[in-house]
């Protein structure tokens, strides 16, 4: 019997445990071939790429893209090691496939750090096989061959395209250790590369979750309890059902779902739907939250997160004690695309399509909710109109699946902006009380932090700077179980903790008569020479971003009339130092510029990286200034952008974004530039106006700074 290629592949799958190109060193998940159905003749492939004999090179980006640029960055890394012509590569978003990929989620700015080596090996393995095939073809040693832009080139300068080599490359045996490029050999990594989705986004063709349709699909919207802590009593849908285009009104789990042929009839039906809610307990409000905070800050119960030395002794022997309390409200994530999801649930299977940062979790949760075998649930990833952490929680995907299973039809669930803003999963409201002691020489001898949060979990980061640089430390947190639901919000906890802490360190510096930058450098010297206990940061990298931003912004010698505020923070494995410049004009402060120096190791894509710095600073400024949700009767008062103010075009300062070039393996960039922003702004405001800001949003805390942006 003639052995054809498909038999060869089948045999190889049987004998190698599913490996077409060997990825033994990567473990199974990165190694397995996509599936037998997808193995076309003359296709060289692994989890992240395929090359066909017509030289079509496709790179699969598995992680959910929420605007952080991961789809492009991942593909750049694979393309770099594969050594292909970037302009000719097709980059595709891969759907959820737990056999093929691992950590297929977007959260914690962790994707690049996690996948850096995997992606490089995926590309390098392909390149190895192609070079080996060419070496056999030309009968020369592989070491004499080079690759460039999708060609293998020999010493005579003869070229052969990857596509022409695919048929032979597929049978090349792959060694365990695949050589990777040295940083100096990078052609793509570190360049300015445009997003691979520009073409479809800029012509309106890109399909976001909200744009997904399939034949026979119905639309749904859900009315949820008005306030957190309410339950559904009853409803009357008589009038709602009369509206042309409304198909049905059903209820489940204290929710009322309206099913229709399109969104507008449903929106009209919502206005005439009568629903009665029951208050099963006291509904929460700002007043109640204030009482809880005051009580818990005083009485706890606190959980000790870290203790170094003897804090009481440090305070007793102090030359000076500095104390301050900081407050922040609940915040909505407000991605531009409100929550939505498509579900087509059958008896024993389900098809899910939509925007989620955690597709595997959506799959597992739907399996559990509807008792469907997990392997019978597919999750297709669409483009997403932002995430900021909101789409880590799949509540809306579960709702879509539940509605589909109840009405036995494919359905697209959409949340309105009002649903989105009043639907919970907020950034938790938190308060911090800091206390520090300094000796006569101005050294920081003690540092204590109490964090109290409403559904915040551990509201501290007990192993982060300045911990490790101070002998006596006590970090404690207390958490109140609120009815108001919360979730991670871009740079969870640190999005506010960093401001409070950096503003407080500024206060310490002034109390100690020290320059705020010099104080940080002194503390870091201590962390370098004799760290106290466990630390999670690398003090030398910290030091470098601080000295670099100070140089770039001419710290200490700014032009007359310019007031600078400094801040630095380590989060998600990256370091960002910032200096904000405020100008006083006719007694009014204006934010002119923010300098940011970032150490995220190797920058994969200059364009995408800069976008993240600009975006995170703009985000940090806007929410520090305006972000606010006030509660009454268990519900937020702000339900749309007319009351919930987001930063706009005319409010952004100039931004100077600089990266430390140190060749260290890359870390995340979606979040780390946000945390230091509020602190830099608050400290610059203090320099300009002499006033410390202890409460966000700043625009409401002090009307003199309301128009600083």
């Amino acid at each position, binding site marked *: 019997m003639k052995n054809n290629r498909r038999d060869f592949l089948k045999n190889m799958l049987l004998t190698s445990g599913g490996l077409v190109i060997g990825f033994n060193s990567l473990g199974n998940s990165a190694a397995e071939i996509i599936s037998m159905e997808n193995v076309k003749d003359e296709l060289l492939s692994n989890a992240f790429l395929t090359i066909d004999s017509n030289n079509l090179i496709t790179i699969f980006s598995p992680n959910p893209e929420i605007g952080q640029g991961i789809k492009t960055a991942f593909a750049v890394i694979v393309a770099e090691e594969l050594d292909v012509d970037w302009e000719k590569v097709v980059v595709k978003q891969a759907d959820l496939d737990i056999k093929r990929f691992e950590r297929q989620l977007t959260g914690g700015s962790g994707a690049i750090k996690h996948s850096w080596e995997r992606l490089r090996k995926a590309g390098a393995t392909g390149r190895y096989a192609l070079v080996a095939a060419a070496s056999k073809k030309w009968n020369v040693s592989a070491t004499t061959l080079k690759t460039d832009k999708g060609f293998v080139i020999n010493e005579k300068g003869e070229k052969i395209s990857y596509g022409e080599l695919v048929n032979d490359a597929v049978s090349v045996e792959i060694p365990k250790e695949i050589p990777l490029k040295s940083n100096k050999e990078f052609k793509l990594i570190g360049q300015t590369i445009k997003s691979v989705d520009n073409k479809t986004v800029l012509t309106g063709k890109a399909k976001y979750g909200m744009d997904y349709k399939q034949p026979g699909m119905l639309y749904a919207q859900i009315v949820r309890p008005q306030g957190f802590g309410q339950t559904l009593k009853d409803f009357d849908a008589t009038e709602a059902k009369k509206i042309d285009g409304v198909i049905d009104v059903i209820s489940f789990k204290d929710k009322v779902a309206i099913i229709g042929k399109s*969104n*507008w009839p449903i929106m009209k039906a919502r206005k005439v739907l009568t629903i009665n809610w029951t208050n099963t307990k006291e509904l929460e409000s700002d007043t109640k939250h204030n009482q809880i905070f005051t009580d818990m800050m005083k009485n706890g119960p606190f959980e000790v997160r870290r203790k170094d030395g003897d804090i009481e002794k440090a305070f007793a022997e102090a030359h000076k004690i500095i104390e301050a309390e900081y407050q922040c409200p609940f915040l909505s994530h407000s*991605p531009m695309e409100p929550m939505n999801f498509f579900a087509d649930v059958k008896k024993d299977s389900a098809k899910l399509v939509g925007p989620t940062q955690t597709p595997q979790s959506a799959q597992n949760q739907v399996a559990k909710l509807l008792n469907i075998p997990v392997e019978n649930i597919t999750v297709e990833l669409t483009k997403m109109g932002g995430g900021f952490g909101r789409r880590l929680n799949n509540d809306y995907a579960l709702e879509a699946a539940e509605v589909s299973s109840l009405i036995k039809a494919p359905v697209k669930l959409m949340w309105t902006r009002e649903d989105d803003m009043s639907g919970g999963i907020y950034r938790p409201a938190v308060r911090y009380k800091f206390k520090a002691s300094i000796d006569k020489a101005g050294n920081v001898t003690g540092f204590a932090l109490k964090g109290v949060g409403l559904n915040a979990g551990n509201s501290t980061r007990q192993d982060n700077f300045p911990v490790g640089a101070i002998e006596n430390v006590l970090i404690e947190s207390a958490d109140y179980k609120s009815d108001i639901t919360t979730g991670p919000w871009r740079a969870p906890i640190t999005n506010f903790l960093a401001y409070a802490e950096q503003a407080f360190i500024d206060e310490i510096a002034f109390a100690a008569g020290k320059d705020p930058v010099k104080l940080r450098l002194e503390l870091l010297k201590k962390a370098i020479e004799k760290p106290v206990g466990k630390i999670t940061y690398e003090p030398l990298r910290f030091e470098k971003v601080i000295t670099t931003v100070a140089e770039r912004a001419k710290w200490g010698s700014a032009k007359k009339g310019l007031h600078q505020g400094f801040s630095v923070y380590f989060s998600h494995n990256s370091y960002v130092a910032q200096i904000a410049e405020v100008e006083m004009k006719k007694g009014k402060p204006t934010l002119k510029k923010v300098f940011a120096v970032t150490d995220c190791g190797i920058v994969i894509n200059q364009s995408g990286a800069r976008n993240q710095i600009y975006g995170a600073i703009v985000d940090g400024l806007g929410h520090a200034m305006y972000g606010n949700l006030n509660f009454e009767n268990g519900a937020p008062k702000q339900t749309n952008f007319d009351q919930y103010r987001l930063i706009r075009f005319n409010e952004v300062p100039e931004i100077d974004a600089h990266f430390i070039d140190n060749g260290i393996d890359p870390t995340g960039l979606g979040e780390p530039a946000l945390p230091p922003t509020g602190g830099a702004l608050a400290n610059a405001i203090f320099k300009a106006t002499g006033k410390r800001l202890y409460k966000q949003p700043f625009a409401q805390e002090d009307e003199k700074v309301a128009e600083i942006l």
Partner: protein
Amino acid sequence: MSEYSLSINGKKLKVDVSEDTPLLWVLRDTLDLTGTKYGCGMAQCGACTIHIDGMPTRSCVTPVTLAIGKEITTIEGLSENGDHPVQKAWDTLDVPQCGFCQSGQMMTAAALLKENPNPDEEEISMAMSAHICRCGTYHRINEAVKLAAKLQKR
């Protein structure tokens, strides 16, 4: 429900919707022109911006009946091949992050540059501040409007 004849991106199209239906939902749900986005439903964010007789208009608060007999342009019809100066500038400067708000942003920028081929900083700011970009792409939007103005002259 009533039948309306609309002129969208140079084509005559018939739709059967109720008279109070905002154009946004006619475009998205009825005609499958999903490049125009829903963001707030109350003319705050600008994601739904289209042109009606060349004027930038919030389709989320514009009933279908107001567009009868007028020329509607959506992002899909801004150019035939995605090569409107605004689209080229947005690509060259790699403006989008999540991209969801950008079709609305570009429709406003295109209308501005048609009306005023040489906008100054103030005029660009006035026009573009009517939009929200949650990713914070404002710096690049600013540069892109200026680049588009240059490209338009060529």
